[in-house]
């Protein structure tokens, strides 16, 4: 009877660090760690000796000192006496504002163009592919400059609105399109306006509840309640009633021409509009391709099967094609949103005060704190993109095909 013996214990030899796969990875990682630490130490020592030679240090105290420059478009109170940190905050809000606006409109442009490009109408689909190719193949910086130039060249100056027989006139006496920007009415919140807003929010909840109930009724009994008109009625009738009962508390402050410029209302600056439009029409071309790819990824058999079940064209789209296509469309769509946020840093080319222009532009140049400003700037963009990536991961996990 043979007895099992342990295999002979191989003694450790130095050459095994390179030749034995069990140890080799440790060797490589150790070398990588050494290289990493050495290069970091090299760069840091360079940095500190260079800073010492230039008489600089790393300090974030400049954030607390007055910025000393004006910003023409702000969402929060700001004056040239505010701190640099406040200026950076103004910039951050401006970045988020233009990114949000551009995301909304780029999605609209992209979906329309993507759907139309798939249409059977030869002319329209060719026109849309022309749009997509033109905008995808020309740098966004050139588009931003072109659209800013168009705005300045085509729209009239505020002085064209003056006189008895003005060259330009306001649209509905409420909107003024000038080359300095667009003036729109500003809402004035009077006493009791809170009630109106609350009613409106409640109506939205009501609409959702009604539609849930209708769907449930349909599945339970097969009885189909009308959806369209009741939803609209629930949405608007109570709010309008409350609005008039409360004595019309929400008014509008119209822009009025005074002297050489408009006053009152909200001024949406020219650079913001140019950047907004350029980003949305440029990214819209990319989104159009994503939408097209998503719809084409759904096999024709799906819509044919839905048709065989007797569904109408609209319901086939809503219930069968879109839910599947969205799974393909949404991930690249979110990465396009990320691109919009990052491309909005080109605001510096048209003088829109986003965070790159305030923190990375004027503050950097005035204080000379290059390293601190650029690091803060990167930190901001990194935070935004990590947040968006996190949202995307959550979504991807929620719509992932549940396979066994």
């Amino acid at each position, binding site marked *: 009877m043979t007895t099992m013996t342990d295999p002979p214990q191989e003694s450790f030899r130095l050459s095994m660090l390179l030749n034995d796969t069990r140890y080799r*990875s440790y060797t*490589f*990682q150790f070398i*990588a*760690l050494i290289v*990493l630490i050495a290069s970091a130490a090299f*760069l840091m020592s*360079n*940095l500190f*000796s*260079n*800073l010492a*030679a230039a008489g600089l240090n790393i300090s974030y105290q400049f954030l607390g000192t007055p910025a000393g420059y004006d910003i023409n478009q702000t969402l929060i109170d700001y004056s040239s006496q505010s701190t640099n940190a406040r200026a950076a905050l103004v910039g951050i809000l401006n970045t988020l504002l233009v990114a949000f606006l551009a995301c909304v409109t780029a999605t609209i442009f992209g979906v329309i163009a993507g759907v*139309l490009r798939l*249409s*059977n*109408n*030869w*002319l*329209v689909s060719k*026109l849309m592919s022309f749009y997509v*190719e*033109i905008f*995808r*193949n*020309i*740098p*966004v*910086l*050139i588009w931003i*400059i*072109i659209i800013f*130039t168009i705005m300045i*060249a085509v729209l009239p100056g505020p002085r064209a609105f003056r006189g008895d027989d003005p060259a330009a006139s306001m649209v509905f006496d409420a909107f003024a399109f000038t080359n300095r920007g667009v003036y729109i009415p500003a809402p004035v919140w009077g006493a009791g306006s809170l009630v109106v807003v609350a009613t409106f929010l409640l109506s939205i909840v009501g609409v959702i509840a009604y539609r849930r109930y209708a769907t449930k009724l349909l599945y339970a009994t097969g009885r189909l309640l009308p959806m369209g008109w009741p939803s609209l009625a629930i949405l608007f009738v109570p709010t309008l009633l409350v609005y008039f009962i409360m004595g019309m508390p929400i008014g509008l402050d119209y822009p009025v021409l005074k002297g050489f410029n408009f006053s009152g209302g909200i001024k949406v600056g020219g650079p913001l509009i140019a950047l907004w439009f350029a980003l949305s029409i440029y990214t819209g071309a990319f989104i159009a391709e994503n939408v097209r790819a998503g719809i084409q990824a759904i096999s024709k058999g799906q819509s044919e099967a839905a048709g065989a079940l007797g569904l109408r064209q609209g319901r086939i789209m809503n219930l069968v094609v879109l839910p599947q296509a969205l799974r393909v469309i949404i991930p690249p769509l979110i990465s396009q949103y990320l691109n919009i946020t*990052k*491309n909005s*840093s*080109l605001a*510096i*080319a048209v003088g829109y005060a986003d965070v*790159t222009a305030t923190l*990375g532009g004027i503050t*950097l140049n005035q204080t000379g704190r*290059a*390293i601190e400003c*650029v690091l803060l*700037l*990167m930190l901001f*963009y*990194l935070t935004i*993109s*990590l947040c968006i990536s996190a949202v995307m991961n959550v979504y991807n996990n929620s719509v992932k095909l549940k396979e066994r």
Partner: protein
Amino acid sequence: MSDTHAHSAAFVRTEQVPPAPPPASATGPVKWAKDNLFSTPLYSVLTVAALYVIYVILGNTLPWIFSGVWNTSSLAECREVLDGVSGGCFSVLTERWNQLLFGFKYPVDQYWRPSLAFVLFFAAAAPVLFYKMPRKLLLFTAIFPFLAYWLIWGGTILTPILALVGVVAGYFVYQRFVAGSFAAGFFGGIAAAFVVWIIGGLLIPDNANEGAMLRAVPSRDLGGFMLNMMLGVACVSLSVPLGIALALGRQSDMPLIKWICVVFIEFIRGVPLITLLFVASVMLAYFFPPGTTTDLFLRVVIMITMFSAAYIAEVIRGGLAALPRGQYEAADSLGLDYPQAMRLIILPQALKISIPGIVNVAVGLFKDTTLVSVISMFDLVGMIRGPILASTEWNGVYWELLGFAALLFFVVCYGISQYSQWLERQLATDHR
């Protein structure tokens, strides 16, 4: 039997009727228009709207282009010639042609050098782009970077020759040792190249640039579309190898290497290129050894290469992930080690899958080279916004200049994307 039938029936056709042409309503342009343009009322409305849009666009631009002026020396003179007629002052393009292409500082009598480098670039790129070309031409591709450097920057020919000798020495060392172990060959080759460069660098005299065959041109004198092309070509070709390394590192089993690559890629992808360019222009100089000066062009190339390498790494990672698991296992079962498996089996397939993605990144990168105008380098956009629009002669000529820039970029980028589609068809081996 057929005879009796023929006699009994009243009439039987004995010859074939010639096929009649389809009715006019079911053929030709009318039918096509009916099917493709006016099939439903909604489509008819869309067609009319599209026609109107095309009419408005063409109706405004065509007269403007055709009545354009090509040979005046200033905007005022051009407006005089036009005399109120709508037309483009394209003479800004003819008059500032060299500035648009080469920037405003490059020595005028040396324009032939970048032009020659541009022409040779096609010869160098051809064997890479078209794999049916003779393989011997790749030798020229290998020499081209050094030749182009010498042509564009000028100065002593010793510098590019030294660089070339270093690369050749590294290559021979690699060939000598790679049969034993890939790592030995790879690192040995790099070490050999550095030894040659350091020794050669000590041998080249300091005043070598004086009396050189080609006058030395400093990097800050580069500009115009040439700068865009140089940045695009240099950064794309440098970032592909770096991207492959990053992608392999991210797939690696070694946690430390994996995390270095993940942090690098995610960091670069999370920030806009413009902040990286700020790093290049105001921050990177602090990280070089004290006393050395690195010119802005090199710093920008470093940052853009890192930027596009991160994106290319993600594309290649997709390609690696798309390969079936069996390919990796097959390589293992053949007894190949990691470098062999990667070089011979995995990467050729993964790179083929990644080609469209890599080309997308390359097109995006080429478009992004315009951003260097923000850190006051005078590339094509920088030239237009800076010296040309600010000059007294051409202050106010927007459309012609911006249209020209847009056209140049469109031609190049559209060409690249068409090439990529052609290559995809050529490489399609799955017989579908």
